[in-house]
């Protein structure tokens, strides 16, 4: 546990130094995106990595936060309220949709998450109070009270704080009863049930926490981007990005999502910047190829492979 805390502390220090020293808007933008995706990946990792239910609809929880922020701001409320409001809605949504679907196995669950996300997407697109397909443009009003800043620095600091919080929560998860139960359920649900682990109950708890984390990321995203609409928040494409980040880094590992987000941002965004725009597909080619290679050769992901190697070495010396 201690090395993880030290690593997290080091990341926070480096992040803060970067905010203080770097004034390049493009770099700060990449840093913010990286942290946001790391949070989303970790949120996904709770239900899909530790609990083993691969979700392809996780963006709906991200959307909860983004839309909560948009609604708060457009109704004259403080966007800080959106953290609580978005979390409540996201957790409720996780409980309502998770209750029937979390017991589904494998692809049945995965396709159910796609179906649920598509239904919510359709619901948003026909709801006038949710801005229909047009979404919301948030008025510009910088200041801490409005959770809005003229510079990118404070956003990065907030994202860093959220990332640290989520990593701490996950360190806690790995050592908690919930964490052990989830991994037991993932390894063998029948064996876990036979020793009295209530699958639905523990997975619902994990799902709700996972939704709350994604929602917090959504609030930050809305305040950063100042524009919220279905394609940028709840679309299937966003859900897939989140899932792939979790997979590349290594599902069910503490640092997997952060590593996955790093690979995603450096490769996908870096390539898109270098070869002119994301519309050309080069980012997809590289990213898709990496996922294929990992799935075929190293299905435990980057971090999972490293962890395995360390365990083997320790096992050999002990």
């Amino acid at each position, binding site marked *: 546990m201690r090395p993880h805390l030290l690593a997290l502390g080091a990341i926070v220090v480096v992040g803060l130094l970067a905010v203080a020293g770097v004034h390049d808007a493009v770099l700060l933008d990449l840093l913010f995106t990286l942290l946001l995706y790391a949070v989303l990946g970790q949120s996904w990792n709770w239900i899909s990595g530790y609990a083993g239910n*691969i979700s392809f609809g996780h963006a709906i929880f991200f959307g909860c936060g983004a839309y909560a922020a948009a609604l708060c701001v457009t109704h004259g409320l403080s966007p800080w309220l959106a953290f609580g409001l978005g979390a409540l809605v996201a957790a409720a949504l996780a409980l309502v949709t998770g209750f029937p679907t979390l017991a589904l196995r494998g692809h049945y669950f995965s396709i159910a998450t796609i179906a649920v996300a*598509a*239904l919510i997407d359709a619901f948003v697109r026909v709801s006038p109070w949710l801005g229909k397909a047009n979404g919301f443009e948030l008025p510009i009003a910088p200041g801490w009270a409005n959770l809005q800043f003229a510079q990118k620095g404070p956003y990065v600091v907030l994202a860093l704080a959220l990332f640290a919080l989520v990593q701490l929560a996950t360190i806690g998860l790995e050592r908690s009863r919930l964490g052990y139960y989830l991994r037991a359920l993932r390894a063998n649900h029948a064996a876990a049930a036979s020793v009295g682990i209530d699958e639905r109950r523990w997975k619902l708890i994990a799902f709700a926490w996972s939704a709350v984390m994604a929602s917090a990321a959504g609030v930050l995203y809305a305040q950063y981007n100042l524009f919220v609409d279905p394609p940028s928040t709840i679309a299937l494409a966003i859900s*897939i990005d989140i899932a792939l980040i979790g997979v590349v880094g290594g599902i069910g590992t503490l640092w997997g999502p952060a590593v996955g987000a790093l690979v995603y941002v450096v490769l996908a965004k870096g390539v898109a910047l270098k070869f002119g725009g994301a519309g050309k597909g080069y980012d997809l*080619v590289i*990213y*898709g190829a990496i*996922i294929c290679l990992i*799935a075929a050769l190293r*299905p435990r992901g980057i971090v999972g492979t490293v962890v395995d190697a360390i365990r083997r070495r320790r096992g050999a010396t002990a």
Partner: protein
Amino acid sequence: MEALTTFAQLLASGLLTGLVFALVAVGLTLVYGVMDVVNFAHGEFLMLAMYAALGLALVGIGPLLGLPLVAIALFLFGIVVYRLFVRRLLAGPPEATVFGTFGLLVLLQGIAQAVFSSDFLSAPRPPFQGTIRFAGLAVSQATVVEGIGALLLTAGLYAFVEYTETGRAMRAVAEDRIAATLMGIDVQRINGLAFGMGAACVGAAGALLMLSYPVYPTAGASFALTAFVVVALGGFGSIQGALVGALLVGMLEVFGGYYLSPELKMVPVFLAYLVVVLLRPQGLLGRR
């Protein structure tokens, strides 16, 4: 009277739409049935087939003549993908096939975008563009041709799996991989063949769909999404189930689009999926 005509018209459109869905879904269900893999890149195979059909159309080979060519090309492509890639996924943990085929989806979409750009492309002067009028109903010739193609394809695939030696071997592998190996069946060969045939089905589908749809890098994705629902409704692995599920989904989509709103046409489809997987997880015609 008018309401009745509308209803009959919707019924006809729903059935024909459903047959188009069946065209895409049969290949998916075959692969699932034999090797327990949901190929998330199935729609991207369809997209490749549509580009191939478009290429043939540009050199003057029409969709019906081009159909077997595209199907053979996709069959070979499927076998290569199985040998190089899917075989390795099967050796890994169960989730490897889910995200591995998802990675393939991203890769193929990216390649299509890089090579063909994101433009919508249609076949030049496709045949069967007229409308058939019958007893007050109007249906496009293209969808009728696609529907007939779907019925032939489903029947052919069903007959193959039921009555040929290779088909029997496929069913044996589907039932019990280890027992099949012990009976002297080369599981890798059968898996490869099934994956190739699944791709060939989508090859035939792509050639037919170019009659009435444009192709673009994500053209296959929406068809595939519907196909997942179709296959789940009918029962994963069941070929007859895919046909029944497809007709149901076609009907739900057309009626939903008419009576709700075109934006909401997928809502009854996804609701139906959720209801079926929750109440009857094996699907309408599937076995547990």
